[in-house]
């Protein structure tokens, strides 16, 4: 129970939800694919094959895990940007590749290592920034606002009634954000 942290900021529980998005997506997909390979091909003309596929335990667990993925994904979208949550889903590919290499001792080609590096770098880029940018009055990006008290007053006051304040403050926030990074 970490309710001491302010609402809207990233806290331990939110990182846990993002980890759930990643892990459930990766494990659900791999269970489903493992199960479907046992079941074999299903043609559109014999849809009864779908029923026997669902009865396969791997497929059933895969579907449950993907439901869990969808629940955590929608929960994450309720407090974070789409462009913040989506890279987290792709981190699952990295986990799968690492499991293939170090647990299953499969060969991972140099091109795939490059792909892992790209995804990890991209997710690192996102994680370094704020998780929610839609609302200017959001509390997740305090440094630019502290740097300019007058504008901070503007956006805090104008959050509901003055759309022009958003227009003015939005570009200045993104500009001042680029300096430290």
């Amino acid at each position: 129970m970490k309710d001491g942290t302010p609402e809207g900021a990233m806290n331990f529980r939110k990182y846990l939800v993002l980890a759930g998005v990643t892990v459930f997506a990766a494990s659900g997909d791999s269970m489903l694919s493992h199960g479907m390979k046992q079941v074999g091909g299903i043609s559109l003309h014999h849809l009864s094959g779908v029923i026997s596929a669902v009865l396969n335990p791997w497929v059933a667990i895969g579907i449950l895990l993907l439901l869990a993925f969808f629940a955590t994904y929608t929960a994450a979208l309720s407090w974070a940007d789409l462009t913040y949550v989506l890279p987290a889903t792709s981190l699952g590919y990295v986990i799968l590749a690492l499991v293939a290499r170090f647990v299953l001792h499969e060969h991972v080609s140099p091109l795939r290592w490059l792909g892992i590096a790209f995804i990890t770098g991209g997710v690192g880029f996102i994680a370094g920034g704020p998780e929610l940018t839609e609302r200017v009055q959001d509390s997740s990006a305090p440094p630019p606002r502290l740097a300019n008290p007058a504008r901070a007053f503007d956006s805090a006051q104008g959050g509901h009634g003055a759309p022009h304040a958003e227009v003015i403050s939005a570009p200045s926030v993104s500009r001042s954000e680029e300096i430290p990074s």
Partner: protein
Amino acid sequence: MKSLYTWSAIVAIVIASVVGDVLLSHAMKQVGDVGTLWRSRGVFAVVRRTLGNFNFFLGVSAMAVSFFCLLFALSWGDVSLVAPAAASLTFIGNAVAAKIFLHERVDRRRWIAAGLVAAGVALLAG
């Protein structure tokens, strides 16, 4: 001719899943922080408010459309082309759509990240 079919299906997957993600994200912003809602009103309030949101319903429908487009694409094209192409193009499409429709501040940092992740997914799944 077959590759034209495959690429049309890939474009359809990308459009449908971008529409689905954007609608779902918009719906969940309307619902509000589910953690806060859960603590104050209980889990049933969360479920009721989410399932009662029309954008949520539309978003899930769009995702279902994208899933069926994926099935069609897989029947025409190779999985090693369809899966990475659709996944990485969806990343780029989502960054553009999030900026235009959700008014997310997609700054240089997020553009670079979207590009890196898209390239990485294409390399990994290819």
